[in-house]
Each structure stands twice: as structure tokens, then as C-alpha cells.
């Protein structure tokens, strides 16, 4: 039985939540790509809203919309990813401890700062007593969610799983990482990461939620395979590893129309994709997405939103193209065939996700 992804809802630095289409043009950001939050009170009752920080709000509105689109009242399980958790409340509580010498503290920030608040708030909101796990592992947390969701769907009584990923950034955290040159200097913007010759990235933040199930009804994508691995063994190339992943999923190289890369603009990081682009990808569309949402650990979830839009027939935007296939590929009878997503961060925490338009 297949695994289908449905109703992907994303909050990002562009208007992806209310509009839910690929942006026609992209905005330029030189600093960090703060996400555009909707008017929360349109979606969440004031009583609930008051108890939630911004981070939990963006998660809840995405999850809510994803469920409502499908008319699902309660998911059977909730699996989420966040690598940084509630950064704002973590800083708040840590600062309170340090500033007040561990005195006069209140529990609110502490409770909201825990990484698993993401999943548990959703469980509370939907009275979901099923399986609930939060993955927090750097750049592969979301892809591990996909892997886990596949395992979970085999369990009895688990038909619809709410999955998602979110990470937030704050001025304080941006400033901290700026001191060690994690970011580009403000001379470059997100629109120039494709050919950047400098180190550092343009960071972002956002939340993306979706439903997975074994029934194809209302599906946006079919999930054919996922692989998460830490590093390439010394004697194995990225291309070798991708080829064996395809074999294990019964797909040939020619079946792949498009490849979406986790190119993030850091020249050293992106160097690793170079041979892969000219080799494996030479007859395929090669796309990237991190300039739409900014670079953050769990942005793999956003890349699925991006792919789902192309799969649904929206025109492939030129701004997302690294290399366009010579021959007309994809969209046989209007259906996008296989898309392979390949991502890593500094040659660690690799993931391959293989999806198909439906």
C-alpha cells in the first residue's frame, strides 16, 4: 500500500499560508527571513491564543488548516520535528535565570520552551491520545518524521497521521550566530545564493504541517521512499548512495524527472552537490528552495510544500531552477513523475526523499 501526503500547509517568509501558491516573484532578504504570520485570531480562539507563544501559534494554525482542509477532526498520531524548539522562550527563561540570579522566575517560559511542547500542544488541541514523538536532530529531524510515519501507518487503527516541522529564529539568536560568521554579511541576499562564492547562509524560519495516510484520496504527493543517514562512508559518492536508494525503492535513474537540492548558499556546503548536478542530474530539472523560506534545520518540510505546488500543475518558476532538463520531462498527462529531494548540512545528516505527483 502506498503512503500519501495531503493538505500541506506552510508558513514562510513569503505568503504561502493564506495564498497557498508558489510566489510569482521572491522578496529580497539580506538579513534573516522572518516568517509572515497570519492574523492568529482568525483561526484560534482568544482563550487558547493567550496561552501560546508565537512558535506554538504558527504550528497550531498550520496543523489546523491541514486537518480542516480534509475535514479530519482528530489525527490518529502526531509526529513533529523541531531542532531549535521555542528559541524565544528558551532565551527568555535562560536570561531570567542569569539576570535575576535564579530568583523570581515564573513557569510560563519554562513550560513553553520545552521542545516537545510542539507535539503536546497539538495533542491537547485535538485530544489525540495516539502516538506522539518529537524529533530534534539537526538537519534530518523532519525526514526522520517521514520515516517514522511510514512505520506508524502499519499499526492497527492508525489511518491519518499529522506530521510537521517548525523552527523559529530570534534577533538574539541571529546575533549570537552572526558572531561566528554562520550568516552571510548583508552584502548578499537570498536571491543570490545559487552562485554564491562566500561562506554562510541566509537563515529563515517557518512551520509546515501535512497529513499522511495510506488512502490516495485528496493526495498531493505519494511518498515512495525515505532514507536518512548521517554521513557518506569515505569510499562512497553521493551519486552511488542515491543510486542504491533508488534501486531499493524499485525506481531507475531515468524515472526521476526532477531533483530538489538543499543548496543553502554556503559555498563550501554547496560544493558537495557540484559533481552530483553535472553527473546524475545532467538530464533532469534541478531545483532549489531555501531562498524561498530561508535556511533552517527543519525546512525539508517546506520543500515538500514547494514540490506539491509543481506537482499540482503550477508553472515551474524560473527562480527555483538551477538547471532545466533539455527534453520535456515530467507532467506526462499533466502528472509530475518522480521527484527526488536530496539534502545535507556540511556533509552530515543526509536525507533522500522520493515523491511522485498524483
Amino acid at each position, binding site marked *: 500500500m502506498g503512503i500519501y501526503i495531503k493538505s500541506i500547509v506552510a508558513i514562510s517568509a513569503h505568503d504561502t499560508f493564506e495564498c497557498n501558491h508558489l510566489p510569482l516573484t521572491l522578496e529580497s532578504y539580506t538579513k534573516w527571513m522572518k516568517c509572515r504570520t497570519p492574523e492568529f485570531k482568525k483561526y484560534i480562539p482568544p482563550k487558547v491564543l493567550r496561552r501560546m507563544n508565537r512558535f506554538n501559534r504558527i504550528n497550531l494554525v498550520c496543523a489546523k488548516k491541514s486537518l480542516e482542509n480534509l475535514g479530519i477532526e482528530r489525527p490518529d498520531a*502526531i509526529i513533529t520535528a523541531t*531542532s*531549535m*524548539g521555542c528559541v524565544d522562550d528558551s532565551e527568555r*527563561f*535562560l*536570561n531570567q*535565570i*542569569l539576570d535575576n*540570579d*535564579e*530568583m523570581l*522566575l*515564573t*513557569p510560563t517560559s*519554562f*513550560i513553553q520552551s*520545552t*521542545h*516537545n*511542547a510542539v*507535539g*503536546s*500542544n497539538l*495533542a*491537547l488541541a*485535538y*485530544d*489525540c*491520545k*495516539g*502516538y*506522539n*514523538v*518529537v*524529533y*530534534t*536532530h*539537526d538537519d*534530518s*529531524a523532519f525526514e*526522520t518524521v517521514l*520515516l*517514522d510515519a511510514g*512505520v506508524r501507518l502499519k499499526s492497527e487503527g492508525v489511518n491519518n497521521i499529522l506530521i510537521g516541522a517548525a523552527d523559529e529564529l530570534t534577533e538574539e539568536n541571529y546575533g*549570537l*550566530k552572526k*558572531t*561566528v560568521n*554562520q550568516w552571510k554579511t548583508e552584502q548578499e541576499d537570498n536571491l543570490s545564493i545559487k552562485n554564491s562564492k562566500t561562506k554562510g547562509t541566509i537563515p529563515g524560519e517557518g512551520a509546515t504541517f501535512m497529513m499522511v495516510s495510506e488512502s490516495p484520496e485528496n493526495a498531493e504527493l505519494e511518498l515512495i521512499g525515505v532514507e*536518512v*543517514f*548521517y*554521513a*557518506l*562512508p569515505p569510499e562512497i559518492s553521493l551519486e552511488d548512495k542515491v543510486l542504491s536508494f533508488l534501486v531499493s525503492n524499485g525506481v531507475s535513474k531515468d524515472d526521476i524527472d526532477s531533483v530538489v537540492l538543499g543548496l543553502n548558499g554556503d559555498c563550501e556546503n554547496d560544493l558537495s552537490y557540484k559533481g552530483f548536478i553535472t553527473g546524475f542530474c545532467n538530464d533532469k530539472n534541478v531545483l532549489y528552495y531555501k531562498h524561498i523560506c530561508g535556511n533552517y534545520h527543519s525546512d525539508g518540510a517546506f520543500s515538500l510544500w514547494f514540490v506539491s505546488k509543481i506537482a499540482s500543475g503550477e508553472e515551474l518558476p524560473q527562480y527555483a531552477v538551477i538547471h532545466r532538463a533539455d527534453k520535456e520531462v515530467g507532467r506526462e498527462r499533466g502528472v509530475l513523475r518522480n521527484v527526488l529531494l536530496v539534502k545535507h548540512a556540511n556533509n*552530515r*545528516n543526509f536525507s533522500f526523499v522520493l515523491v511522485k505527483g498524483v
Partner: protein
Amino acid sequence: MQSPEQSRVYITGMGVISGIGKNVEENFNSIKAGRSGIGKIKYLNTVHKEKFLVSEVAFSNEELILGLGLDKDEEYPRTTLLALWAAREAMEDAGFESDSAIRTGIIVGTTVGGMDVAENHYKQQGGNPKFIISSQSKGYTAEMIAELYGIYDFVTTITTACSSSANAIALGADLIKSKRLDRVIVGGADSLCKYTLNGFNTLMILSEQPCTPFDDNRSGLNLGEGAGFLVLESSDQVRKKNKHTYAMVSGYANNNDAFHQTATSDTGEGPYLCMKGAMEMAGINPLEIDYINAHGTGTPNNDVTESAAIQRIFGRQYPPFSSLKPYIGHTLGAAGSVEAIFSVLSIQNQMIYKNLNFKTPIHGVDIVPVTESKPEKVVHVMSNSFGFGGNDTSVILSQTNSN
């Protein structure tokens, strides 16, 4: 379709460090002798030093770094040091050898990760941003183990509060059963830090006395620190390498209580569901559980709701149960794996453990924990881990033929 034997998940190595010992043997001897590791704070730099009791690991960071042979000019989160310590013991115990033909994984559960390092450097004079940034990565510990042992296949980190490492065990077992991995090092680690001590203090659930789980006069929990790791291997690996096995992971379930951010529902719905689910997976009935390693934190809320859930499942014929928190404190993200190891030791040594500090049964709850450590026939042990956010997980460890 694979036979039940083929889908078994075996434990072939264990390692633990806690307030009652630096390895499995010392921990077991302390439990057997009824020795508690709870006492005054020695290493944690906090204004609450005189107020709260904790269970600290009896080594400074410098001693741990030296013992692990790490670069002493680097600064490592204490959580990472404890994890490396316990993982090393577990891997040596399992006769771990690097072999690219064996698909290997590492799964770490943690709550605070490297927060202690952030506390030392954040906005402090001479603070090093590099250390703060790596301390904010929850994945740092798992990656450090992967780098040291050359594990390339699967590395991840789970944060579900106090059930984090119980979920690490469950995921590891699932990945072996689904044939994605041949062996996996699973466990968890958490060190004491100001962040958790003060966080729990704001919730007013820390006791100033040694904790008394399941006692009517319980006044809260004592925090602890530590790490526990297990090596899980597939039946194929065990057969091929003729490995010694300690026990098998026969059942587990994860449910959310979906009631409150920091409190469990009166009926213990989440705990009830995961205990029931774990037995279903193990294919055993309640009468076959020989011992429950309870979550038993010593907070008013946990112990009464866990008792309610135990009564709902087991009725009057409830199995012997005890909480080991009076020995090691509440080790948070490490609790699930450290206590799973203690559960395996219960099977290995055919004994059940005394619930220290228990005097008076909880008013209106007529179940009483084990009051003396004693020999007992133990085939199946249930180990409970319930966390904030309603993240509840129960794991069942079972005897294998080689025990």
C-alpha cells in the same frame, strides 16, 4: 512474512552512569544494598545548593573528560560526557566492532542537552559563542558518538521530556524489526543544570527531602542526572555472531495523555493506554507481568495517576512494583533507558527492588509498592516513563532462553 523469532530485538550490551555508580555493576550493587544517591548538590553551581537534594554523578566534568580521553581544551556539555561514558560501556559490553556491512544506528533521548554550557557562556564575560551554539543543538551528543565510533548509517535525537529515551528504545526496536538496521545503540542522557532545576522549581514540584514515591506524604521529586545506553541487535546478528543476550525488547507503546501541559489526567489515561499497548505488542496478559518499574517520581500528581492506571489494568492482582527514583533521582531524558537497564538487571538477577522511603499507602489508593528487595521469578518487566506534555511510553523487557 518473518517468523516471530526473526523479528525479535535483543539487548546485547548495556552501560549506565548515575548518582549510584559509574557502570552497570556499581549501579546494581547500590540498588541491591538499598543505597540512595540522593544528597546535597556538589558540582552544580546554583543558588539553591543548600535547598534542594539531587542525585549527582560523582565526577566533575574534568574527571569525565580525562576518563574518556577527550581533548581537555574543549568544553563539552555534561550531558554529552555522561552519554559518551555510558555508550562506551554498552558498546564494549556488546563487543562492538566497526563494520560497514552491519547497518548501525544511534538514537539519543535528551531534554536539556547542553544547556549547562549555555549557562556558563551566555552573556558572560569571556563567554565563547561557539560553545553556546553547539550547546543549543540537541543532536550534538548523538553526533559526537557517531563521530567517535564511525557510525554513518542512522543518527537521530528524540525529545519527549521524561519519556525521551524510552522512545529511543522503541524507535530502535522498530527500525530493527522493519529491517532498516541490524543493530542500534539507543539510550538517553541528561545532566543537572540551572535551567531544569529552576524550571521544576517554578512548577513547585521539587522536594527538599529525599523523595518518597507512592507514599501518602510525598512532597515532590529530586532531580538526578545520568545516562543509560543499550545495544539492540537483530536475531540475525545474534545468531551469526553467536552473541550473548541479556533480554529482549518485547513490547512498547507510546500514547499522549492529552490532558494538561504538566499534569496527568485523574484516570491516568495516557499511562493506561501505553501500558496496555505494550502488553498487546508483547502478546502477554497482565498476569504475566512479574514486576513494574514504575515512573513514580514522588510528585502528588504522578503517583496517584500512575496508581490509578495500574489499578485499571491489573485490578487487585497487580504485580510487584517500585520506583527507583529514590536511588537515582529523576534523570529526565535518561530515565527511560537507565530504568530499562535496571529492569533487565531484575530479569538477569531474578530479583525485584525495594521502593525506598515508602511508609504510608496513598489515601484512597490500595496498592503498595515493593518494600524489600528480594529474589523473585522475573520473566517480563514493564518499565514506565511518563513525561510533561502527556508524552507517555511503556516498554516491556523479557527473558530470553540464554538468560
